């Protein structure tokens, strides 16, 4: 896979980042370097190896399905700047 400026812009847009031309120029060779270095993992034979999504075995820990108090609407909205009628106000969808 060729890491080029076009790809960097595409990935940035998927990640909701607007990069300046300067940032694209700076990141492209760095990303190429980094991903090339990481690609050597290919050399490890992992044919019969499961992925470790956690470093230690963890079973499904579930809590009892019982109702309990949650944050009040007022507290939940305390950190939001754009609010209306007890809700968070977001940008328009389209």
């Amino acid at each position, binding site marked *: 896979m060729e890491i080029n400026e076009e790809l960097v812009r595409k990935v940035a847009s998927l990640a909701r980042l607007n990069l300046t031309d300067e*940032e694209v120029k700076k990141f492209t060779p760095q990303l190429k370097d980094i991903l090339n270095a990481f690609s050597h993992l*290919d050399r*490890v034979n992992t044919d019969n190896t499961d*992925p470790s999504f956690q470093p*230690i075995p963890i079973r499904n820990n579930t809590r009892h399905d019982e109702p309990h108090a949650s944050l009040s609407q007022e507290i939940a909205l305390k950190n939001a700047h754009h609010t209306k009628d007890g809700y968070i106000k977001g940008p328009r969808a389209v």
Partner: protein
Amino acid sequence: MISDFVKSVQQGKIDPVHHIRSALEEVKNINQQFHYCTTIPEQSALAESKEAKTGRLAGVAVSVKDCICVKDIESTAGSAILKGYHPVMDATAVQRLKDEGAIIIAKTAQDEFGFGSFAVNVGIGMEIPKNPVDPERACGGSSGGSAGLTRKVSFPHVSLAESTGGSIVCPASFCGVYGLCPTYGVVSRYGLMDYANSLDKIGPMATSVDDLKLVMDIIGHMDPRDSTCTGPQHAKVIQKPRIGLLKSSFAQGVDPKVQSAVREFVEKLKRSGFSVSEVELPLTEKYGISCYYLISMCEASTNLAKFCGMRYGAHEPLDGNFNEYFSKVRSKYFNEESKRRIIIGTFARMAGYRDAYYLKAMRVRTKIIEEYKKIFTSVDILLSPTMPILPPRFADIGNLSPLQQYMMDIMTVGPNLAGLPHLNIPAGSVEGLPVGMLLIADHYQEQTLLACAKVLE
């Protein structure tokens, strides 16, 4: 030592209000030059000190890494995108310290979201913390503020830090303090702002082994609010652990001055009757860095998706559609290293690349864990220098490429990937600069590490 101080508070010999007032003055003075604190919550600290007469940390001043939530105190994970965010709850670890009478006196500086090894990748508009013994050098990262403050203050103090790939032991090494990163899951992550969920651990920094142990005993418990929390598991303490020196860490690529400082401590262990042999971890040494950075960047890029300027932190006027608004806020307030890691992590999770990068790294991690498990059948503690270099000058860090900076984590990524407990012990100094020694043990062997560190203290 903290326990002596606490006894004096409990007996009424020390007035916690007076003590905290002077502690805050000292922290403010230190902060002017060294920039260890993102917030110094004077009012709440003084108010809390009036109530602090009981508990195992009665009246003890505690600082908390900025990525760990403290109720009503600005907590930003060192990032401008969280400026103004005041958590509505305490992290479980913070709550447990408060329940024992601790007073939160500072939130500490860090690389933004933990993305760095030198605490130079601070958020936009934030100050870089400086090494306590030489302000022209880095204090290490990412928990740099915690380590620097722990070294610098004159009063009894512990800090709550956090490690994903070495962020506790690295700065502890560069600042010459103790730092313990526990087994993954022993300390609840509830209230910690995630960097990489399968790697993040909260742990203490202190100036003595007893103080580390005291804090670990308080914070290391089950928590129903974190489904990955296991608590301590009470593994049997190994009385005379067999020490394995990591051969490659006493070789080319590691500053010879660092090597010889650590070797002096190895001799001390031998004289104390510990058996010491040389061991190797070929897979971890070769692939640990790549494996760690791929996993952590993939997880970070999903975690950072939630910062979009709506529910908390930085915001902008609500114009444009949601894509335009989110992109505007994120582009303006994330720093360069965050953007770099988000892009790499997003790329490595994209359709067509996910198996080659993300899943591959997860499989290599399994092999790395197996390699450690095998070595722990022949030795009980692995020993190496913590960092391959002395604390670097800021000017020299600027000359390193991002990849070269990542390579500095060569000693610390292994135990972090495998979720193993590890501890930095101050191992003297070279030319006045602190050197750190790293001890790694099998899962849940925190107490064995602490006992071994105690012998060397």
